[in-house]
């Protein structure tokens, strides 16, 4: 433990691995996002993730946002345990009939103002699954969607970029309303 602590004192942060272009993009995306989230919410955007039928691939990449490399918390993005604490629902998967009610209830439990991000080719369309006896359809067939982030699965960087777009859109909406 002691050696680990000592090492950490002198190690470079893993968060910004040097000249890799995607890492540079990450930094840029992050900074832009941070400024906007601060303006809009003061400090943070609370996100609740809901798997409405995904293959779990999208969850893996959403999870990655929390690791030390992407570290989304430094931009004020925080995943919360309850929809009642959330500003944003990130919903994955084609919505299965067996999850429809749970998704509707989760949406209802999220206080206004709230935004919904449909994640992945499945959340945005139905991906390879399609509507069937078991699948209702894309997320927007069940609850209103503000933003679609495609990809199978979308990369963590795509997800960060997408969240910027959401914050932009919500800022615009607030301005036009106010």
């Amino acid at each position, binding site marked *: *433990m002691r*050696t*680990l602590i000592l090492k950490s004192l002198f190690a470079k942060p*893993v968060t910004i691995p040097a000249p890799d272009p995607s890492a540079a993009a990450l930094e840029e995306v992050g900074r832009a996002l941070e400024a906007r989230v601060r303006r809009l919410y003061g400090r943070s955007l609370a996100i609740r*993730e*809901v*798997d*409405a*039928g*995904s*293959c*779990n*691939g*999208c*969850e*893996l*990449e*959403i*999870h*990655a946002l*929390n*690791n*030390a*490399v992407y570290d989304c918390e430094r931009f004020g993005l925080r*995943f919360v*345990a*309850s*929809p009642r604490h959330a500003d944003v629902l990130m919903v994955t*998967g*084609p919505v*299965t*009939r*067996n*999850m*429809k*009610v*749970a998704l509707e209830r*989760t949406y209802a439990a999220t206080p206004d103002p709230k935004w919904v991000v449909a994640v992945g080719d499945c959340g945005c369309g139905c*991906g*390879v*699954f*399609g509507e*069937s*006896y*078991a*699948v209702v359809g894309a997320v927007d067939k069940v609850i209103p969607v503000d933003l679609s982030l495609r990809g*199978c*699965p979308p*990369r963590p960087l795509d997800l960060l970029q997408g969240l910027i777009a959401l914050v932009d859109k919500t800022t615009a909406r607030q301005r036009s309303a106010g």
Partner: protein
Amino acid sequence: MHEDSISALLADALAVVPLRPWPRYELATAAFDAVARAVGDGEREMLALWAESGMVHMAIRPIGETPCVVSTAVIEGRFPSVGRWHAPAIRLERAIHDLYGYVPEGAPDERPWLDHGAWDRSGPLGTRGEAVPRDPADYPMLPVTGEGLHQIPVGPVHAGIIEPGHFRFTANGETVARLEERLGYVHKGIDALTTNAPIDRAGKVVARVSGDSTVAASFAFARAVEAALGLDVPPRASAIRGVMAELERLANHFGDIGAICNDAAFAIVLAHCGIFRERILAVSAAVFAHRLMMDTIVPGGVTTNITTEGARLIGAALDEVAPAFAEIVRLYEDTPSIQDRTCGTGHLPADLAVRFAAGGPVGRASARDFDARRDLAYAPYEGLPFDVPVLTTGDVDARVQVRIREVAASMDLIRMLLAMLPEGPTLVPVPDAAGPCEGVAVTEAFRGDLLVWLRLLPGGKVARCHVRDASWFQWPLLEAAIEGNIVADFPLCNKSFNCSYSGHDL
């Protein structure tokens, strides 16, 4: 073959030729029932149980020998229950009933499993009857009686970024008296989507049965197609498949080890393992152009070659991660506070692991010495020396330890495969089937053995395909492992199993 009752029953049956590489036998109802009974007596392990229109199939394996499939016709919508004799079959035949409407006669549990009353028809793949809509919450949980018991319902939507499922705990104070799972929430109709589908479309669906095992599933699917067609894959393609499968295992094991420790409030391991996992995904993206390597393994080979530079990148990633991981392992082993949480927690008895043919780290941590890469050997693992760690303590710690050792074994395998990467093509054309033919394959996913059976038709079509994830036999064991533990240790036990919801719900 063993001299036992199943051998005698099979001697009288006609082997059905078109399944490769295992024999398939069609049996009359009474003989099928007798085989099921013998499986229940422990004569064979059951690897899978599934249906197609008018027929039910069961894959069984005598320890140390080639498995086979036994089939029986569904007569007047009924087939003999296997679950009646062999508990691991119960959920499988409840699923068959929901999908096809076929009744397992004499089944001990007649509750629906995948059909929550929300589908637009009943028996969608078979009888296709009118749906009888019912409230999804209207599901009789097994009764638990006793003094001072209370219930804690959890899910389907959980607190973390995880898949949906419902857990009903019955607890006495802090102690879990019983856990009952209710699954099926992410049922997407995969069996229907891979019925009468072009091979490439079916392959894309199979690759998305469970995103974390996409390589293993595509690997099994491709091998089943190749077996059915008698197609040989170029050695270079097989070696590349092996590299991908081991990279996938590494990424997932890092994720699991980190997540287990995190649920015991030892977040430092998660922080470091998260970086290791990310390193593996980044190199996978650099070499295979996709972080999870989806759709890269296809029938006939692989779609992406490993260049010299690619091999160097993978080697460099391993060189970087290996010593850092060793340090984290030391930290895990030398910290009493985390050991206090993992040792002795969530004990899974060895006899249950054997009875349920539990695959992967769950089985191997409870003394079940099975690894499909070695025991149902396939290219590129045939003839390669690699370690299959088996422990006997059966607790959360053992499941962590098995994963730790498998990380080392996978790294060795990747290095071996890259060092002797054969020259030659990486993809050969897939010929058309001359007539209906069947193939079956098992690969060792990070979670355990993953089986794919399929029947092909001329014209590049899949007539029917079934995928059986290791989770089917691990989920019920989680219910057993949590008994007598405190409720607060459930996340820890659950993560140490890490069963797939999507891979199970299909």
